[in-house]
């Protein structure tokens, strides 16, 4: 049976732009992002280099649909520097992106900065609150107080951005169920449009990882699972619909930039450590300010970790990352987008997920994980990767 692409598929796929601002005042205990304390003229050189890197990209006349500034702490830039970065970016966007998110740390939020962002056309702010409780903020090594978080939220709301997100973290060392419930309730009381709730992750090379390997803190997958389920329950009751493992939004407020990423669309990443998926390749910039500056100066970008965007790779990743979303994936549509014989094996695996109650499927082939399945998204992903690893006929000798 021949299937024709739908109207939506025929339309030009959305392009994203990610800018990594690699500066932070200090390093949080759990942080594995690339960031450094800005010294000397580092910021100025960074800004110039972003402009230079943007010029290296072959935009091919494509419009940027969504933009995202992450870090690091973009808010560490002064208002004038934010404006400069915004203008640099807009040169290549073909108009202001329909969605433009900026991550801010509460301690950096000022009316001046917000005004600049608003004027640039930023639509969505994401505030890294993490917790409202001093003890837990301390445990995370965060540099802000609860009072600063409230104040930052007030200032943001006063500027009338289209969408505001709060980041929260759970399963912190010694955090009780009750403490987490209080944080969620407090966040809900502020009525943001979007909430991201992250289970504390022990990333290698972080202060927290060191504590874990010294046995000072312990991992408890069962407790984490309980926290997850509790969160989903609380937020659903408060009117925030879950649309991905860690993301919840009121109607109309999902983050399209991220959705596009999970749907294996393309994006350009600028700045040190930024990843791109563009022009047939997935690749990254060096996670080091000086190296990135040098690369850009030499007229090179996105040279590390290069992987060709083959249908085999995209087919697997579109399922692996797509299943993290509550809507899941349309298997027939992905098969048309990324045709490869390897779908056969994956399709042998899907029924197992259904049988075990880890996934559900509609007659049209929309496959999505159940809550139990979503908690096992990585384990599911590993199996899918394996299923896609070998060509269909190479498995049997």
């Amino acid at each position, binding site marked *: 049976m021949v299937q024709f692409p739908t109207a939506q598929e025929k339309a030009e796929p959305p392009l994203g732009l990610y800018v990594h601002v690699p500066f932070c005042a200090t390093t949080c205990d759990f942080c594995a992002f690339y960031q450094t304390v800005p010294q000397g003229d580092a910021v100025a050189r960074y800004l110039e280099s972003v402009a230079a890197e943007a010029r290296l990209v072959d935009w091919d006349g494509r419009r940027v649909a969504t933009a995202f500034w992450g870090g690091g702490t973009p808010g560490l830039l002064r208002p004038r520097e934010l404006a400069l970065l915004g203008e640099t970016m807009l040169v290549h966007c073909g108009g202001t992106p329909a969605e433009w998110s900026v991550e801010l740390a509460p301690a950096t939020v000022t009316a001046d900065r917000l005004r600049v962002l608003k004027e640039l056309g930023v639509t969505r702010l994401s505030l890294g609150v993490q917790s409202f409780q001093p003890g837990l903020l301390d445990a995370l090594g965060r540099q802000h107080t609860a009072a600063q978080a409230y104040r930052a939220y007030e200032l943001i709301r006063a500027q009338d951005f289209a969408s505001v997100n709060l980041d929260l973290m759970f399963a912190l060392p010694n955090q009780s169920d009750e403490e987490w419930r209080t944080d969620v309730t407090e966040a809900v009381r502020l009525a943001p449009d979007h909430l991201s709730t992250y289970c504390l992750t022990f990333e290698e090379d972080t202060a927290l990882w060191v504590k874990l390997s010294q046995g000072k803190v312990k991992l408890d997958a069962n407790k984490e699972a309980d926290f997850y389920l509790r969160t989903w329950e609380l937020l659903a009751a408060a009117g925030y619909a879950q649309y991905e493992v860690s993301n919840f939004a009121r109607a109309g407020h999902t983050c399209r930039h991220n959705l596009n990423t999970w749907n294996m669309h393309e994006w350009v990443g600028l700045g040190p450590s930024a990843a791109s998926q563009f022009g047939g390749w997935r690749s990254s910039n060096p996670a080091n300010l000086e190296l990135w500056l040098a690369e850009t100066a030499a007229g090179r970008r996105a040279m590390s970790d290069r992987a060709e965007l083959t249908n085999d790779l995209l087919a697997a990743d579109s399922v692996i990352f797509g299943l993290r979303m509550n809507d899941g994936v349309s298997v027939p549509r992905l098969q048309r987008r990324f045709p490869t014989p390897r779908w056969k094996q994956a399709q042998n695996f899907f029924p197992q997920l259904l049988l075990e109650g*880890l996934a559900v499927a509609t007659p049209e082939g929309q496959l999505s994980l159940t809550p139990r399945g979503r908690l096992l998204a990585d384990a599911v992903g590993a199996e899918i990767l394996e299923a896609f690893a070998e060509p269909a006929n190479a498995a049997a000798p």
Partner: protein
Amino acid sequence: MKPALLTRNFCIIAHVDHGKTTLSDRLLEYTSTISKRVMTDQHLDSMDLEKERGITIKMHPVTMNYPAQDGKIYTLNLMDTPGHVDFSYEVSRSLAACEGALLLIDAAQGVEAQTVANAHLAFAQGLKVIPVINKIDLPSANLELCMRQLEDILTIPAEEAILASGKSGIGILDILEAVVTRVPPPRWTDYPTTRMLVFDSKYDSYRGVISHVRVFSGTFKAGEMMMLMSSEQKSEIKEVGMFHPGMVKCRELGPGDVGYIVSNIKSVEEIKVGDTVTHANKPAADMLPGYKEVRPMVYCGLYPLESDDYEKLKVALGKLRLNDSSLIYQNESSVALGFGFRCGFLGLLHMEVVQERIRREYDVEIISTYPSVVYKVTKHGGDISEVDNPVNLPDPASILEISEPTIKASIHIPNEFLGDILTLVMEKRGSCEQTTTLDGSRVMLSCTLPLNEILVDFNDRLKSISRGYGSMDYELGDYRPSDLVKMEILVNGDPVDAFASIVHRSKAEGQGRALCEKLAEIIPSQMFKIAVQAAIGGKIIARANVREMRKDVTAKCYGGDISRKRKLLDKQKEGKKKMKQIGRVSIPPDAFIQVLKTNS
């Protein structure tokens, strides 16, 4: 050459810890065979392991010169015997090299299981048994009880007993005199042709095989051609000598002498314990009595913990076998454990000692599968085969009958534990034929038990029930038909070979359940529901569920995380390759090892 009339060959037999080693040392000291200065405590037990376990595995004869009260100088050859039933054949060969035995009884403990077993072995070899009540220096010594037990249990006249203390040197002279006057001079010296008994062989990397021998008739010298009577293999004698106590070369070995020979023979397998050596040009007509081929009674798989250690394990087994022809092994591989060896042992202790030596002396970490005995399987057509590995059990439909080896055990315990021990014997499918009162406070049970039931924890249970006061000795009994089945352990429906076992039908469910539960607990949590089942011929008799994984999800997964995440998943995939794949379940190799460890 000294006349055989002035030679006495004897050994000391005793229950473990009754003082055999201490007394031997005193005898060596008294006869100045070893000066006090060079005596380490307990000279005869040379391997550390033996010292630790208080058992002697390989014996080492010693020749002493003793000026007796009759004015003549006697040559006394003291044979040390291993103290464990696993080596009962070797014990019997050492005894066969003697004319007399000192039977030690700890004055505070009285007669125990091994005392009885050893005494019977000595009687069976026609030895003159000299009872020695030892450790009389102990305040808790109960001479009267020991005397009565001697008469009642061993039917030895009490007035023959010598009172002694190896520790304080009491009675040493009496013992030496008794050896001279009561032990008969060497027997069978006038047999018309030459014969000597091989009662042990050691491998020496420079000289080849050194065999410990007792000459019965004729003389043997270097340069002569000898012949092994069991195989008719001929070889040139390179050297003969005696133990003083170190090996000292001599011109010849004559009737009654105990010593060693070195020949061209290159491996201990070729010169078997119990064989008779004769002159090749004028061979004897009959072998000395009692020779038999020893066959392994217990088998298990031995696998290196690190698969890289396979070669090291192979070398270790090879070297151990140089000195121990009763250890046999062959290649084996298992899905769960990789490459290893199926090994046969004389018994449980032999198995433990070999494993321990591999770990200590060869520094190879090993894991062993469940021990198995040798079953006799009769098929409908009448074919009889021996099966020592459950994997090799024929299709149940083709089997008419399976027989298993039994043991005849004699268990000595204080009266108050009688009930509990009887329960234990029943639990182990045994029966008790006779209960003999040893004295007011102890009883001796004569029981028959399947060998397979005592492989794992019988001795430990016996000790713990009797608070350490019980003792057991056994000899092999006959094969008896039994309702035996092969039990398989399945993970998610796929059999795990390392856990297959042959069990009695009545025990299958309980053992199966325990094994399933342990395995289910040790297998890491799984994404899918996975059952561990025990099955007999396809029928599930027990099951347990592996814990289900509850959470395995990355919290943050944005653009920059995708490559990283993919790499992690890739790594996970690689990691899976290192795991043992049982069907679609990946199990870390050490999960099996942990189960085997906790069960042994």
